[in-house]
């Protein structure tokens, strides 16, 4: 993914109460163009409320949501062209055909009449909806409806795309394609993605923010250099063998032939792989290790007391 550009979204001390209960408290977040932020949290953590505030649907009780430096709730029309939002339940007018509905959404988002047809065609293609373009959405499966919801969120090429559980209802193949799509979107847009699926975050996101009981408990990068690698080898090795490789910062044994390896900040994965092969470790497996994020997430979810944000 490209390097982060200017800040697109900034949440400053955003809080929101619903029915007298604080659902989100003092949330601070920033997101730059070309970044994908994964918002994680257990049910009731405040993810959906946060996303609704980011999308311009729900005004914060206090604090500000800024889009390109301007307050979204003082200038709600900013959302029209610059934000795309897929809520948890795709907001579809099911009696219409996919194509007709998307054309309406394009016009609603302020696209010129002449730009509607190409935008709809592009969104249909990106979300692989071409074969159901003329079918009433009431007849579509849940997976297709989710993809129409995604198509309406991206068809006006917004700067910021807000996706609430986009993988919900998708089969594994569709979920994989969604990851690719989000990764692709992240190259040109800022994307905020809420999900329960840790591997989705691992695969799509540059950064992760973990919410728990309405508070931001963790915010950190998921850059390759910060990630742990899961390495499988055919030889029985000791920690010192790994630490003798220049790119390795730390190592932890999973079992006799599998290791969790962290690289030094400047080290590249191919450099590490070349070193391991060069030393004849019998490299058999090398992949990103999701368990470090999982450990962080589970530790936060299990914690009763507020932890410090990283």
């Amino acid at each position, binding site marked *: 993914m490209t390097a982060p550009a200017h800040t697109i979204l900034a949440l400053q001390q955003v809080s929101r109460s619903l029915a007298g209960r604080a659902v989100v408290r003092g949330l601070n977040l920033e997101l730059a163009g070309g970044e994908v932020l994964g918002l994680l949290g257990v049910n009731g953590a405040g993810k959906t*409320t946060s996303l609704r505030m980011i*999308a311009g649907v729900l*005004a914060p009780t206090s604090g500000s949501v800024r889009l390109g430096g301007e307050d979204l709730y003082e200038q*709600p*029309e900013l959302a029209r062209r610059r934000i795309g939002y897929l809520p948890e339940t795709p907001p579809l*007018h*099911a*009696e219409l055909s996919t194509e007709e509905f998307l054309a309406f*959404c394009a016009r*609603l988002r302020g696209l010129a009449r002449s730009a509607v047809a190409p935008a709809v065609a592009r969104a249909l293609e990106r979300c692989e909806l071409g074969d159901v373009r003329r079918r009433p959405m009431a007849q579509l499966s849940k997976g297709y409806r989710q993809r129409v919801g995604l198509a309406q969120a991206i068809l006006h090429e917004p700067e910021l795309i807000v996706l609430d559980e986009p993988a919900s209802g998708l089969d594994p193949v569709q979920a994989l394609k969604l990851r690719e799509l989000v990764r692709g979107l992240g190259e040109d847009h800022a994307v905020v993605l809420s999900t329960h699926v840790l591997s989705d975050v691992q695969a799509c996101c540059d950064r992760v923010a973990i919410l728990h009981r309405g508070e931001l408990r963790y915010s950190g990068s998921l850059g390759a250099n910060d990630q742990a690698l899961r390495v499988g080898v055919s030889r029985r090795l000791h920690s010192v063998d790994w630490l003798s490789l220049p790119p390795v910062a730390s190592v932890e044994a999973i079992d006799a032939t599998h290791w969790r390896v962290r690289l030094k900040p400047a080290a590249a994965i191919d450099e590490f792989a070349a070193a391991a092969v060069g030393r004849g470790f019998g490299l058999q497996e090398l992949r990103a290790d999701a368990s470090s994020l999982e450990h962080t997430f589970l530790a936060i979810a299990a914690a009763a007391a507020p932890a410090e944000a990283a």
Partner: protein
Amino acid sequence: MSVAGLIARHEGRRLLVQPFAWTLAAIVVALMAWQFLLSLQGFLQLAPKLGGIKDAPGVTDLVVIPLLRSFGNLLVLLVPLITMRTLAGERRAQTLPLLLASGVGNARIVLGKYVGALGFALVLILLVASMPLALGFGAPLDVGRIAAAVLGLSFFAAALTAIGILASAWAAQPALAAAAALAIASLLAVVDAGARLQGISNAGINYLALPTHLEPFFRGLVASVDIVYFVLLVAVALALATRRLDALRSRAD
């Protein structure tokens, strides 16, 4: 096209692709056609006796205006059925965020929904009015008076639609929205009934009542005071509906 116009056209399109609107239109037209034929038959039986009377009421007085007046009563029931789903239906189907997140503004959402629903009500008025107008081929009609009555019905429908939109913005369920709209419209229809029973017809309470302002149109009188009443009613109802959407945005319903 303005955003409100876009939403209005979209509303109209959504109504057209659903059987609900067609069924409603078919029932209304069948009901009014039946009533039209009955009153026409009654007129034809009465016509020979009317021939000898000076300034006898014509087909406009005995067939057309009663039919339109009767349709006015039906509109009180009908319009809430048209408007109930405009906003409450969106909330129930969880599709309101599509409009709220589009940044087009609550007033334009309300106006678009209003114009869309009113368009359908006006089509029904034209359909019903076209039946007695067909008599023009064979009988002299008081076209001016009929035009005034249709104009009055249009203002009446505009007010009822605004009340319906307001109820739909307040209620989370379409059925509740329809019931609330019917209750408000009925209240406005009978608010001066007590006063009228006591012979009071020119007091403030009479001004509040819907029939006070609709009836002159049926007599062929187009008065600015009546038009102002309907316009005010529409403006207040739509402003309240917009306020309700503002509140929903800050309450996250």
